[in-house]
């Protein structure tokens, strides 16, 4: 027997609930409110099956009322429902448009690297398996990206210049969309320099890693003479006519390095908007750093040879793995967005539920 008194409880509680917030309502056969709950003895003698039937009928009643009244049945639990006052806030609409998942597509071209940085978020090193995405998959991703709403492609590794076909990989991207290529800038010699020179200067930005204005800090994390070679790479790329961004990974206790570093970059000719400073994430080889979880991190859709990941900073962390199917890319982006919405809604509910005292 359906319990219409539940609707009275719900309407009263929603009236005292801010729009956008939720209430949880007991819909079990023994729920308070209305005539159906007034006979406790009959409720206790009801069979489990009839109790389940009554709870289902109550849920149906609440669902029909929500549909008719413009409120949202946010969640159905075993013996209760969660109802939101009004329509849910769209977590995607609350983001800055540039943060919308899928605005950028990150691709890990490979995982092997000529360096073994002690804070590398994906544990790259000369001994790491290549796990290359391959030019065919990169080209197909780039093909699908524009239609899927992607506005920028970002290629990273590992060290992409270890790949013998990095110029083809980059060309498959720059012919479709503006592209950024992350590199340590240390390998611009011989055949690799020729590959760099074949890249489209109008459509490609090179993002070169450099951590400090002097060699000490940079080399302490990345290895001897790494700073000198990276700075050489920056100068060469600028001389070749490329747009160059510089990205520093800075431990929290090195904030005093920022001022001399930005001054140094200005001296190199790096524009202010092309200077990026990142925190160390506790991922990969890093034994400390910022803790990043899928429910606390706005996703940046990332593709590796293994599949789709939540964010490039955690592309070897199983808890950030989204799906093995890369194609169609639009489905992968939709999957990430849907998961983001679920995480945000769960966080909102937890915030509403968490008592202050």
């Amino acid at each position, binding site marked *: 027997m*359906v319990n*219409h*008194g539940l*609707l*009275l409880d719900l*309407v*009263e509680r929603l*009236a*005292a*609930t*801010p*729009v956008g917030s939720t209430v949880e309502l007991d819909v079990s056969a023994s729920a308070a*409110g*209305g*005539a159906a709950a*007034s006979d406790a003895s009959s409720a206790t003698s009801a069979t489990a099956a009839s109790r389940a039937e009554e709870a289902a009928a109550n849920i149906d*009643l609440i669902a*029909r*009322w929500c549909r*008719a*009244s413009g409120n949202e049945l946010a969640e159905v639990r075993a013996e209760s429902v969660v109802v939101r006052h009004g329509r849910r806030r769209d977590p995607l609409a609350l983001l800055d448009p540039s943060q919308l998942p899928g605005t950028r597509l990150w691709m890990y071209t490979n995982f092997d690297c000529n360096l073994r940085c002690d804070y590398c978020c994906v544990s790259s090193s000369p001994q790491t398996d290549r796990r290359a995405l391959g030019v065919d998959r990169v080209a197909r991703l780039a093909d699908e990206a524009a239609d899927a709403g992607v506005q920028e492609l970002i290629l990273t590794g590992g060290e992409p210049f270890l790949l013998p076909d990095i110029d083809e990989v980059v060309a498959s991207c720059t012919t479709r969309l503006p592209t950024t290529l992350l590199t340590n800038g240390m390998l611009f010699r011989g055949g690799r320099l020729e590959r760099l020179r074949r890249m489209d200067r109008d459509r490609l930005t090179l993002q070169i890693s450099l951590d400090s204005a002097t060699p000490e800090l940079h080399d302490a994390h990345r290895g001897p003479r790494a700073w000198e070679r990276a700075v050489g790479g920056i100068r060469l790329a600028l001389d070749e006519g490329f747009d160059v961004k510089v990205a520093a990974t800075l431990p929290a206790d090195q904030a005093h390095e920022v001022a001399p570093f930005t001054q140094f970059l200005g001296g190199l000719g790096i524009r202010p908007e092309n200077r990026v400073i990142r925190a160390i994430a506790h991922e990969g080889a890093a034994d400390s750093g910022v803790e990043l979880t899928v429910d606390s991190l706005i996703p940046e859709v990332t593709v590796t040879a293994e599949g789709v990941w939540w964010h490039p900073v955690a592309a070897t962390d199983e808890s950030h793995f989204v799906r093995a199917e890369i194609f169609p890319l639009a489905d992968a982006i939709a999957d990430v967005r849907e998961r983001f919405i679920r995480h945000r809604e769960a966080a909102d509910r937890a915030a509403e539920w968490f008592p202050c005292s």
Partner: protein
Amino acid sequence: MSDTAEPLIIGSVAYTPNVVTIWEGMRDYFATTDTPIDFVLFSNYGRLVDALIAGTIDVAWNTNLAYVRTVAQTDGRCRALASRDTDVVFSTVFVSRAGAGFDGIEAVRGRRLALGSRDSAQAAILPVQFLREAGIAAGDVELLRINSDVGKHGDTGRSELDALRAVLDDRADAAAIGLNTWEAIARGDIMAGALGAFWTSPEYSHCTFTAMPSLSDERAEAWLANLMAMDWERPEHRAILELEGLRRWVPPKLDGYRGLFEAVAAQGVSDRW
């Protein structure tokens, strides 16, 4: 739009947390006009009317009973400015158990009728007046009065929901509630298996913005022009209008308060609460 104009101060009763959202939205809207506003929230209509008469606020967002009382306390010097479209077609609904066989207001004779808060025009004061007009004397019906949230004139709806609970729990045979509460619950035929409306009153007027003569006609008219310009078709306006329960602002319908004036006089409802 106006950086220098002195804001008009609007008073309202905080009967739900959403009142803050509504008035912040209204303040944002009027900030784009030449008649900016600010707002003050009160815990009950007695305090709101006191503040209007004392000049602490320029305009009060009054229930029908608060308007009637303002008229009574100011010898009619106050002025109704505007109402919601839903306010000028308000009514009271008598509800019984589905299948109870009630077919009109006469059916409550000799039965138990649940009423809402004693200061609720729609769920207490006017229902008694409707019974009186139908020739049903005080002794002809057993009234179950549910006085919850007195001071808010039934705005919370709590007493009306309690009146419906009384019907479902067989503590009353019928309940008198406002049309807005009935529509909020019934939503078509959702309550068809449990409750049904068997009588609806003639339409009367509900809330209205009320001002004292100290608010000049010029300021009032300029503000009203901007109020009436709120447009349901504009999403930024609609969000506020939906929360406040209207599609458009309209001039007040003063005829619609006549029944409440008579009821207040007949029942000896005091000028203050």
